[in-house]
């Protein structure tokens, strides 16, 4: 096992797949010569050359359109959209074209492509560079949606996404890029659509994603130590396909569900999971389902304001403690 940063795990995952499959190509803004604005793709241009690693103009629609056209004609492109907020400028290509083409053509066209993007808050970048928009993607039938919390998952799930025959939107968490973690040596390929139970508890189940996984784990420790509340923590990892089996079974075991989302409240993925639980686990739930989310506001930029807006370890602890009283 090597220790890698989350950021280096991105490059490692891409390199692993580019080495084994020359249909894999990579395009985006400043991804090549500069190694990406988050330095997550350093070294790929040098290793694979400008034919396979292409710096593009600031033309997000062209980037994703090119990925789509290449995917339907035999390549396996990886496209970077620098910040997930910018998905808005090419949302048509994601939501109306890439997501719908296979179904509309009755299966004639498959689109094995990956859109990587830096998601989430914590860098004081303000409302247009800090959004957690994974539910924008979850809402659209026809794209898979993955959001890893650990370096090993970055590499393994990215590899799985690249090999997947369907389009995958891969959300990398900006605030985790410098986080370090063990990553298996050699070829590492994970499986899409599997949640992971990171901590087993008896009192309540916390379902979280990406950076909120870490905050939930910290909160769970505090809750255990300081308040005697024993929490299960589930890392969703993949919103589509959604591992409802694992999630529902863990909710069933504790009878209590808390979802922890970074995105603003309305129509977040937590609402979807809550609605599934409210239908399918209703009789095993012992108390109301609680969603912990960012308030339904654009994100403020000043550090103190941003910190007070995104769910914090303290807030998770407080909300769970109060509700478990």
């Amino acid at each position: 096992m090597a220790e890698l940063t989350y950021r280096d795990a991105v490059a490692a995952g891409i390199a692993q797949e580019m080495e084994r499959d020359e249909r894999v190509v990579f395009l985006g803004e400043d991804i090549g010569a500069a190694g990406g604005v988050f330095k997550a793709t350093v070294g790929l241009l040098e290793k694979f050359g400008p034919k396979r690693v292409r710096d593009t103009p600031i033309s997000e629609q062209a980037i994703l359109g090119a990925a789509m056209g290449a995917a339907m004609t035999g390549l396996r492109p990886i496209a970077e959209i620098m910040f997930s907020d910018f998905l808005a400028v090419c949302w048509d290509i994601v939501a109306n074209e890439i997501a719908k083409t296979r179904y509309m053509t009755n299966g004639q066209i498959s689109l094995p492509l990956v859109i990587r993007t830096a998601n989430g808050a914590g860098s004081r970048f303000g409302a247009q560079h800090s959004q957690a928009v994974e539910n924008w993607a979850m809402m659209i039938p026809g794209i898979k949606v993955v959001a890893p919390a650990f370096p090993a998952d970055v590499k393994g799930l990215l590899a799985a996404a690249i090999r997947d025959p369907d389009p995958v939107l891969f959300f990398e968490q900006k605030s985790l890029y410098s986080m370090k973690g063990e990553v298996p040596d050699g070829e590492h390929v994970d499986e899409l659509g599997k949640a992971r139970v990171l901590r087993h508890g008896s009192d309540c189940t916390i379902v979280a994603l990406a950076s909120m996984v870490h905050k939930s784990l910290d909160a769970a420790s505090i809750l255990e130590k300081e308040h005697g509340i024993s929490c299960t923590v589930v890392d969703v990892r993949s919103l589509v396909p959604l591992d409802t089996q694992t999630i529902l079974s863990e909710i069933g075991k504790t009878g209590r569900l808390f979802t922890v989302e970074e995105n603003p409240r309305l129509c977040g993925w937590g609402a979807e999971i809550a609605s599934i639980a409210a239908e399918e686990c209703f009789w095993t739930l012992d108390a109301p389902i609680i969603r912990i989310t960012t308030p339904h506001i654009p994100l403020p930029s000043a550090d103190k304001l941003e910190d007070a807006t995104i769910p914090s370890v303290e807030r998770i602890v407080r909300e769970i403690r109060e509700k478990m009283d």
Partner: protein
Amino acid sequence: MDTNVKRKKTAAPPEIEIGQETRMELYRQQLELRYCEKRAYDLFLQNLIKGTSHLSLGQEAIAAGFGVAMRPDDWTFCTYRGHAHTLARGASMTGVLGELMGRECGLLGGKGGSMHLTDVSKGAMGSYAIIGAHLPVAAGAAWSAQYRGSEQVAVCFFGDGTTNIGAFHEALNMSAVWKLPVIFVCENNLYMEYTPIKDVTAVEHPAADRASAYGLERIVIDGNDADEVYKTAAKYMDRARKGGGPALIEAMTYRHSGHSRADPGKYRPEGELEKWLERDPINMYRSRLLELGFAEATLKDMEAEAMRQVDEATEAAKASPVPSLAAIDKDVWADGSTAWRN
């Protein structure tokens, strides 16, 4: 409305020679597209086609000219106004009419509809109903041809109105910078839906007058002359195959019917349609063939044969069942399923 498009032509006349066989093929194609579109119109009136539909009546020379010039492994990307382009690649007429009628035999099994005709086996890589979206997609296909050195060309058709949307600009720039083998064909039929293109565009020729913004030549052709379309297509596709990069071609034409099923076309000035009907691409081509010595009987035979095919396709489509409801839950994903959860 100025229909004298020849005057505006600036591209040097292409030097390609057109053989007799090719001329026959161009005529045959135009006939099939015309008859099939007319049949689609009749089927609306009989309420056998639901939803909307956008006919290419009057614009057939463009689809035919390119269709004949393309190699089987080239790719077509077109719009909701895509019946003709799909047929021009050899897609089955039954499949096209069947799709319009929402039948199981439809190219998309009834799941896509009139605006999304696709036949990958023939290189018809989809009809796109959101203005502009398919220009970058065509560029992407061209990128993949370039990457693999396959010498395939992607041809992307769109309307005059499409030149004012952002995706047009992005696709043209990227294609030019990467020297991609993609031919962008603007079918300028003078209108977006109901609004004259000149009322909403800063230049006279919405595509050609912008070619220089991408370092490309200004090309305006008579889109109602199948020979001219064919020659232009062959010339620029050949260049693209050899690594010469993209072209942006503006083909002047006119649609004889309304924008879509719902549109009677009342916004057109008195006499405009009539003027363009005089330049009907099929009538013009027929006259040319006669002038060139083709026998009236040969043409009549071709016409009868095209009509027979349309009749046959119509019957086959009518005979096809509506799709099974099981189709609904198929083919979101490559494994054939629609499952988002376990």
